[in-house]
């Protein structure tokens, strides 16, 4: 009886493979190739000498002595300072926008007061403001509010160069621009939290601030992972704000994206191998953040 069943099962499965499944796997295989080819091409190109880049097809691995890691050495040399600069504003901007977004979402979700909806609408609207729309107002704002002058004592009494005022501006800009999306993400998480738990804490005598610190914040870890990864990737990869605020890749405070834009470009043409190596080097920190918060990220996305 049971052998009969298993035989039928196997026949069924074979029948499936013959038909629908072959098509499915072919389609999946093509999609994988479609998405991975650019990355694969970039990676093999980054490992080729300048000559090999010109002589071989872009997606083929470096052969016949065309292999070299010189591109990576150069890329790290050129980008190291830019990466340091990027970390200087990306880390505080990520942490602060996530934290402020979490505060705002808590206040808009788990604390009771009037007119929450219109304020929430403002936050949601903030998510949809395109970067391009704020570029001119942004540069106007920082010509009026001169951060370099405001923080004169930093440049006067520390070895930090005055160009680093640009990074303060970048930090503030990214925090402001990141708060709406962070708020919306945290809000969706907080609406699912048990109100009875909040009431229990209130009955125990916890103030609004205490409820956040002792209960809501510790329970937000999965959402913090999602928001931190998302925000860090956004801020690290941003070129537009950097272009407007820092403007030139030759500034000592230039972030990695500005440095990358100029990497391998010269009058003789583009050094594709170097540019690819630079792209991989510059992408490394976001990859590390992803790996570090991977488990919490999965939990946060699932909830």
């Amino acid at each position, binding site marked *: 009886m049971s052998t009969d069943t298993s035989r039928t099962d196997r026949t069924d499965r074979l029948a499936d493979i013959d038909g629908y499944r072959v098509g499915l796997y072919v389609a999946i295989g093509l999609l994988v190739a479609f998405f991975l080819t650019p990355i694969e091409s970039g990676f093999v190109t980054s490992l080729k000498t300048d000559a090999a880049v010109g002589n071989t097809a872009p997606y083929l691995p470096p052969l016949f002595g065309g292999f070299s890691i010189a591109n990576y050495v150069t890329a790290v040399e050129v980008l190291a300072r830019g990466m340091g600069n990027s970390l200087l504003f990306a880390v505080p901007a990520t942490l602060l926008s996530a934290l402020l977004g979490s505060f705002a979402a808590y206040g808009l979700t788990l604390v009771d007061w009037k007119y929450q909806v219109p304020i929430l609408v403002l936050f949601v609207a903030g998510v949809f403001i395109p970067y391009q729309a704020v570029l001119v107002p942004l540069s106007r704002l920082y010509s009026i509010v001169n951060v370099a002058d405001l923080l004169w004592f930093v440049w006067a009494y520390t070895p930090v160069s005055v160009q680093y005022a640009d990074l303060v501006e970048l930090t503030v800009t990214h925090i402001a621009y990141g708060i709406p999306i962070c708020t919306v993400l945290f809000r969706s998480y907080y609406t699912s939290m048990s109100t009875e738990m909040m009431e229990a804490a*209130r*009955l*125990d005598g916890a103030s609004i601030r205490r409820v956040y610190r002792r*209960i809501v914040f510790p329970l937000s870890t999965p959402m913090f992972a999602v928001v931190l990864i998302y925000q860090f990737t956004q801020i690290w990869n941003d070129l537009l704000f950097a272009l407007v605020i820092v403007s030139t890749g030759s500034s000592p405070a230039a972030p990695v994206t500005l440095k990358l834009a100029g990497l391998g470009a010269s009058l003789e043409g583009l050094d594709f191998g170097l540019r690819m190596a630079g792209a991989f080097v510059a992408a490394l920190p976001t990859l590390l953040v992803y790996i570090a918060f991977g488990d919490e990220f999965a939990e946060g996305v699932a909830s």
Partner: protein
Amino acid sequence: MARVQLTDVTKRYEDVTAVEEMNLDIKDGEFITLVGPSGCGKSTTMEMIAGLTSPSDGTVMIGDRDVTTLPPKDRGISMVFQNIALFPHMDVYDNISFGLRLRDYEKAEIDRRVDDAAGIVQMEGMLDRMPDEMSGGQRQRIAIARAIVREPEVFLMDEPLANLDAKLRVHMRTELQRLHKELETTIIYVTHDQAEAMTMSDRIAVLNEGELQQFAAPLTCYNEPRNEFVAGFIGSPAMNFTNGDLTGSGFSSAHYDVTFPTEGVGISPGTPVTLGVRPEDVYPEETLDDAADPTELIDAEVDVLEPMGDEIFVYLMLAEDTESGMGGDVSGDDTLLMSVSPDSTLEEGDLINVALDRAKIHLFDDDTGEALVHGVARATGASADATGEEAE
């Protein structure tokens, strides 16, 4: 420990009145239950006592203090919630001690109180467990311990057993009664389950549509329900109701008549009334002697039998009473539920005669729903005002 008084407490929302002029005087150390169908205002009433909702009108007193405007934490209450609401990221010790730590108690005092509370709910040795490592019953005990540890004057419990399975629920009922005996604290308990209300409380407050229907001891609500709603809500299975009229010689419906002197009923003959009788007060002909004062026999057909083990519920179809042909409303009135002992030999389809116990008959005014009498006398008797208790 404290007396809790609600005076004309009303809660109005924009479109509905959730609670209408609620007056409750709960004695110190009493275990009372707010019971009613969903939407009756029982949870809102509790939230107003807790301070989680503020009343639109009226005052709430706990002990000698008017707490109507005080925040929950200053009312000397603690609360157990339906979905338990433990803090999932804290272990049992941290959960129980949360309120004490917020109030900056000494470490030794916190430890002593947590140990005491854990002992009372019989959860010693579990203090370092996390909530998700425990069963539903254990979690609810921890929630109760969290409420005990603050040594409140009043315990509020909002359907704390609703999320537990049936067996555990019955067990926890006994636990709660034991807890009440041990702590002698005032307990206000909310439930929609009338069985829970009946078994645990000193008094039950039956609510419907935001209004208090009756506030009395469980057996009083059972034997002398103040109106038709209480009669139908308390007791399982529910009381039988038959629509009919009060006549000069008793009660008359489309299916059966009951004779009794009508002087004491308080309304004049010819008025529509509803007769209520509980399933256990309907008797088949063979056990008629068990009834204190059986009525005239009623023709019926056994429709469905529901054996429960300790008793059998018999659904009866009543024959049309062609002789009198009285009574207005015929719809849904032609059935009667009877409970008989499990050794009964009744079978589905049997044609039998049944009788009601006069002493256990309730009459309700159709206009107001108010109870007119509980138990009626024999036609030859002097007074129709006999109560159910006299017949027992």
